[in-house]
């Protein structure tokens, strides 16, 4: 234990050192702790109630929503909402949650846990409830395919952890079959189809008998309701099911497992975020909250602006959207969402991974898993691709059926504002990767000025 205490104190000291030097490392204190005491996670005191959040997409949004909702209820929650979700980040946040003598200062924690890090985290951090929001394709280099991630989670999941799983995702449903669980989902929506139009569909074969699965409804990719006509395997019945989604007044109903209903406010109209609300509701209901209280707590919460930020500027709208880089499915969802919006559009794709450019070169296979075909719609007046992989994007867009006259390509991101057409009334969508947030913001400032100038509004 001596080694552990040295690790604890040194990592606490490193937090002070980081503050004094103006740094904001959420991994560093945990790295220090684990370097000194590799079993740091074993010995660090943990809150009594731990809620884990994992899955490919939406982890951070759900963690933020849940943490905010619990905070709004007056509960002090330890959360890595602004930090890293891998072993070092989890070590950092748990360290911050204890006293110098390793007493937990929190009763509850909401921890976003990277699905690939399960093997390093779950032996020591054993969530009471674990949300699996979805398992879809992510970084090819790191995550290979969702079946690989489902296998890791199944092998590592603590036996006593109760799972809250997206029942519309049959890959997520396959995780840890012997664990106790509840399912959430969304009932048929107007936009559902009976056939997958996306390039990615990772659930076409029955996991039980390997016959062809039949989808009763397809929301996107492998998300929907399916059954096997040969062996009877099917999507589970959901314990918490969203329905009657109303995008006009931004509400939906959620049907509880006892059949009762409650109305909930939507945070935005993307299906991803509708799932996020149902997911948070399911977790809070499993924590013992009444549905009325959940609805009330969620009614005043919004998502952080680095993920989604829409602003009206003069005659224009600028919509900034974070699109997780090298994640074909996340980008496809954003493309689908934007293409469904009416009006004249321009879109900026600044999604090349800056970190990869520095160290080696981005693996661009994901471009061909991603539905760039959504951008072939003529409502996109101009598509601007920027960054080191611009030429790859041009070729991908051409293969998707986008007229080359509508594409502009620049290696230098700073040129983006000059390439916008900005016809009056245009909605500009600006997609940027997770390591381009500050660069995107500085470019967006110039775009805003141009929009104001064109709108003949004097203040910039």
């Amino acid at each position, binding site marked *: 234990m001596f080694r552990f205490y040295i690790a604890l104190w040194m990592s606490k000291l490193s937090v002070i050192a980081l503050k004094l030097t103006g740094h904001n490392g959420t991994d560093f204190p945990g790295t220090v702790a684990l370097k000194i005491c590799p079993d740091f996670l074993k010995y660090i005191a943990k809150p009594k109630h731990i809620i884990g959040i994992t899955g490919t997409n939406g982890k951070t949004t759900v963690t933020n929503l849940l943490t905010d909702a619990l905070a709004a209820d007056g509960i002090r929650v330890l959360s890595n909402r602004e930090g890293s979700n891998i072993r070092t980040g989890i070590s950092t946040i748990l360290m911050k949650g204890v006293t110098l003598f390793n007493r937990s200062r929190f009763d509850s924690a909401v921890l976003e846990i990277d699905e690939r890090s399960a093997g390093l985290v779950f032996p020591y951090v054993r969530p009471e409830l674990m949300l699996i929001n979805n398992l879809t394709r992510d970084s090819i280099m790191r995550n*290979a395919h969702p079946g690989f991630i489902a296998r890791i989670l199944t092998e590592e999941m603590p036996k006593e952890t109760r799972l809250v799983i997206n029942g519309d995702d049959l890959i997520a449903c396959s995780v840890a079959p012997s664990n106790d669980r509840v399912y959430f989902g969304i009932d048929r929506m107007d936009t559902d189809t009976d056939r997958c139009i996306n390039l990615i569909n990772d659930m076409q074969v029955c996991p039980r008998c390997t016959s*062809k699965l039949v989808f009763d409804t397809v929301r996107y990719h492998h998300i929907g309701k399916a059954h096997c006509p040969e062996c009877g395997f099917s999507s589970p019945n959901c314990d918490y099911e969203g329905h009657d989604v109303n995008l006009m007044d931004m509400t939906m109903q959620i049907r509880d497992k006892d059949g009762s209903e409650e109305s909930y406010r939507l945070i935005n109209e993307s299906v991803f975020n509708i799932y996020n609300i149902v997911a948070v509701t399911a977790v809070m209901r499993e924590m013992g909250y009444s549905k009325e209280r959940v609805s009330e707590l969620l009614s005043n919460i919004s998502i952080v602006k680095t993920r989604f930020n829409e602003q009206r500027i003069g005659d224009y709208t600028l919509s900034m959207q974070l699109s997780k880089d090298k994640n074909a499915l996340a980008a496809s969802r954003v493309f689908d969402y934007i293409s469904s919006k009416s009006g004249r559009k321009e879109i900026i794709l600044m999604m090349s991974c800056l970190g990869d450019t520095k160290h080696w*070169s981005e693996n661009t296979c994901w471009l*061909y898993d991603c539905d760039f075909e959504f951008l072939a719609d003529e409502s996109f007046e101009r598509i601007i691709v920027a960054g080191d992989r611009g*030429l790859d994007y041009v070729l991908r867009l051409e293969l998707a059926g986008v007229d080359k006259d509508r594409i502009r390509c620049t290696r230098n991101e700073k040129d983006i504002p000059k390439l916008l057409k900005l016809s009056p009334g245009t909605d500009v969508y600006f997609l940027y990767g997770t390591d381009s947030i500050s660069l995107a913001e500085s470019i967006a400032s110039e775009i805003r000025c141009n929009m104001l100038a064109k709108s003949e509004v004097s203040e910039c």
Partner: protein
Amino acid sequence: MLRIEVLFPELSNLYGELANMKYLKESLSDAEFIETSYTDEPLFLTENVDMVYLGTMTEDAQKLIIDKLMPHRDRIRERIEEGMNFLITGNALEIFGNEIIEEGKTVTEGLGLFDFVSERRARVRYNCLYVGDFDAEGVDTIRIVGYKSLFGFSRGSAFEKYPFARTCLGWGINKDVKEEGIHYKNFIATYTTGPLFILNPPFMKWYMSSLLGDSDSEPAFYDDAMKAYECRLEEYMAPGKGWEY
């Protein structure tokens, strides 16, 4: 009209690999693409087709496809010997070897059509950029670019006897050799992904002309594809460039 058979697209569709066929379709002037489902029998076993394509898949799908093709092993061998065009990319290559081993244990016997063994780790990913030289009769060396993103590597005499490419950057078929993939008659198998055709317009042009007999057409969006290819090659071969992830 050319007839091109895409094997089991519902299973062999990882890493954007089906775009190899989408790009070929866009490029060929007159071709029929037949997608053979996992629940159907492959057409090439009984009918003549001009090309058979199989791309990257999950590890579970490898086993399903081996089980599916095993009863037809001798017929596949005949087709390869007859000179039928096969393009096999990514880990689909492993199906054609003797066995696939995971963490020291055999998980499945392969079709045994080429002499090699594939070994993988359960949770370790091997990623690199790739550049290699492909030599074919009657043409200058074609430089191949792409990626490798794998759980393991393969070893065996097939790669020494019939290499597809000689590695300039990145790993060969394993970390110890320069040989990459198999090129035997008109059977081409490579771990390289990209998708291969899209990242390599010179190779695609050679394939269309030499193996598919369509020398009148060129790869779609050829100028833009060549710009991206040349940019990538220059970037990868720049001194000090990192290539391993």
